């Protein structure tokens, strides 16, 4: 039940009670969480609210000019937004929690056009409670302009199955799409078949694979202290040494499955019910240098940067903002954008190398059940996957 006309309060409460009676043929057993009274102060690094609108515009104008200055770039697109949100959570169990956050998100895109052929290079970025990164995108803007033009002369990949190396940003998206959604318990808790698939202890990857989700990891876009049911944030091991160890819960799914809440119940805003969502999801780094990750690939694809991704649980697709052929262990020619697809259950097992580096993608927003975009982050080292189906655009 949600509304923004305060005068209707009594009527709305009655409707909410009626709706609960209608649905409530069975009781929903919510897992216990300790009631909390807390007011979480905003920890700001560089407050976008103190930056004058004129300064923000000047900075973005500079990037716009940088991209347009690249010969061959015909148009550009920059979006920037900072949003300040204050959320109050109160429950009849005695919780009263106030939390604030500021999301600073942006996207830069350059388009190049030649004889009816059009290519775009773009990048999405984001940060929590921090404006700083917006001030240092000059090099990024220049590279985007140049890449849009280079793409006009780049070939399509020859569709087929390749060994693929993903950079940390795209590997993060892969981790989110290919595995993260499957660990959300609302897909599992009333589904006996899914319970069999997602049985704890099942082997999903090689022993070097570790995947974690947690809002308690600080200073990322999926970070917070309490979720939208008042449960404290945690770090949950999803896969440890290749084996399924945990999953993400709301109070309802935890109650139903007899497990502990993990602090993953999130609502886009007051108009939506809290449902099980990811926060900061990442693959932990391994020990292989990037050179060694690509060294023994005769013919493969190096895919970088995020363009989009989606999942059906079993199968997933995600697209790279930037891709190159790998030939004889070396990065070779630039390719037009590629799309990767695969089957979760084989693909995770096919990860055969983990880099010794690590980075987080903070420019994405996750969508589920009409609630989008929810701020999340995902991260990874460079990873190598055998036998990935690569589509040509």
């Amino acid at each position, binding site marked *: 039940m949600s509304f923004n006309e305060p005068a209707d309060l009594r009527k709305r409460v009655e409707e909410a009670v009626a709706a609960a009676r209608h649905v409530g043929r069975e009781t929903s057993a919510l897992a216990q969480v300790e009631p909390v009274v807390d007011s979480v102060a905003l920890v700001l690094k560089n407050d976008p609210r103190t930056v004058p609108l004129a300064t923000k515009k000047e900075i973005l104008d500079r990037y716009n000019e940088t991209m347009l200055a690249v010969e061959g770039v015909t148009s550009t697109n920059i979006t920037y937004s900072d949003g300040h949100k204050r959320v109050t959570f109160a429950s009849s169990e005695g919780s009263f929690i106030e939390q604030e956050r500021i999301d600073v998100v942006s996207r830069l895109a350059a388009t190049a056009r030649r004889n*009816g052929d059009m290519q775009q290079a773009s990048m999405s970025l984001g940060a929590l409670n921090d404006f700083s990164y917006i001030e240092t995108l000059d090099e990024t803007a220049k590279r985007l302009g140049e890449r849009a033009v280079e793409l006009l002369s780049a070939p399509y990949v020859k569709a087929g*199955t390749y060994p693929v190396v993903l950079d940390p940003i795209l590997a993060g998206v892969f981790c989110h799409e290919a595995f993260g959604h499957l660990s959300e318990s609302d897909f599992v808790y009333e589904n006996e078949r899914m319970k069999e698939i997602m049985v704890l202890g099942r082997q999903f990857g090689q022993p070097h694979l570790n995947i974690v989700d947690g809002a308690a990891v600080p200073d990322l876009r999926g970070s917070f202290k309490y979720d939208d049911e008042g449960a404290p944030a945690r770090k949950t091991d999803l896969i440890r040494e290749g084996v399924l160890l945990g999953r993400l819960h709301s109070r309802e799914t935890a109650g139903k499955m007899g497990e502990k809440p993990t602090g993953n119940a999130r609502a886009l805003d007051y108009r939506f019910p809290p449902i099980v969502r990811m926060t900061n999801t990442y693959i932990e780094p391994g020990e292989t240098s990037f050179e060694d990750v690509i060294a023994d690939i005769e013919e493969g694809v190096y895919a970088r940067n995020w363009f989009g991704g989606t999942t059906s649980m*079993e199968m997933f697709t995600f697209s790279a903002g930037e891709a190159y052929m790998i030939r004889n262990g070396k990065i070779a020619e630039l390719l037009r954008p590629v799309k990767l697809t695969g089957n979760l259950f084989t693909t995770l097992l096919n990860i055969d190398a983990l880099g010794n580096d690590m980075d987080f993608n903070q420019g994405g927003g996750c969508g589920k059940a009409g609630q989008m975009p929810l701020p999340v982050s995902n991260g990874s080292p460079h990873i190598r996957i055998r036998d990935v189906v690569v589509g040509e655009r």
Partner: protein
Amino acid sequence: MQHGEGKVAIDRILMAARSAGAGQAEVFSVETEEMPVRFEANRLKEINSRQTSGVALRVIVDGRIGFASSTKPGDVEELVAAAVETAPFGPEAHLDFPSDGQAPQVEVFDPAVESLAVDEMIQAGQSLIDAVRRTEPEILCDAFVRRGASTVTIENSNGGSFTYQGTGYSAWVHGTLIRGTDMLFVGDGDASCRTELDLKAVEASVISQLENSRRTAEVKTAEMPVIFTPLGVASALIGPLAIAFSGRMVHQGQSPLVGQLGKEMYVARLSVWDDATLAYRPGSRPFDDEGVASRRIPLIEKGVVRSFMYDLQTAGLAKAESTGSAERSLAAQPSISTSCLLVDEGDVRFAEMVRGVKEGLVVEELMGAGQGNVMGGDFSGNVLLGYKIEGGEITGRVKDTMVAGNVHAALKHVAAIGREARWIGGSVRTPALMFERLTVSSGH
């Protein structure tokens, strides 16, 4: 908010905006009541009720556009101040808010939807689930039944005053069948401004998806004939096609159709329209979200690029006329969007298309089709639901398979256009389309 009361509030905002220095001002107000009923895993899960009201203000100050919106009732001063503050950074105004409204009569309101009992909605969802489970008892179904009503009011300082009420009712069912780690996804739905939905057709469609998926089949990586069902056309092709007709994309040089107006770009049998005047379609409206009258816009006529879609600002920039294609949510400025997109029927039955294919693919849904170079017309995705054709017959469902192409290139060589067109949701109506050759890549 009563209507009279709302009008007074809007007039106060317009007056305050003029006093604050706005040469022109426009208020967009929307009130929405909706009730989604959700079934999960074959059972009723949640009945929600959502009310939202709010206003958005556009001002033109010293020739630039400022914008602000609010959902706080009675918020006048803050709203006006915020809109005026943003104007110096806004785009140069190339529009005048319309002063009169000779909008066509478009039926989009049915009082029966507003009074639809929740039991009837539950019944609709349950009957869809029951029908699908009769065919496949082991399937787990989610269903989504929603009714909504909204009042849109636009008033501007040039004397323009526009208001209409609309209703919407829709029902969807999605089934997931899991065997081992194999997952099959089926689903369909219907939408209308009235209470009459064709639930029988939805059932029949989902049941046929299940029948076609009884077995699995493998395709090899190759170029082959591909048939997109109406669901497939809507999921993969409409997005990249429609964006190319946005006057904004054309004006900015980002559409592949720049300079192609009046030229034969597509197969001669292809005609595509955008039409906001169709009675009781959820994509319809008497006027757009700037108050410009709705019309039937020819986008492609017999293969020829006939017109692009414009809102007021882009029309001003491009020296064109608004086509009534402005659409907005409360918190954003208007942008160009399709209303109801219609692809004209052709003359080949779906069954005949299939019969003519020796080896090929039927696509019902592409997953991830909206990623990639959509502006350039590219589409590609994993076949979430699709079937292999062998010797003129559907032999089973394919998996681990991708289809890729460019919609502008593909529509030059359409092998056949289906005779049976249907609505997909409230705003797309299309037949099946068959292409002679598309790139299919597979993990097999």
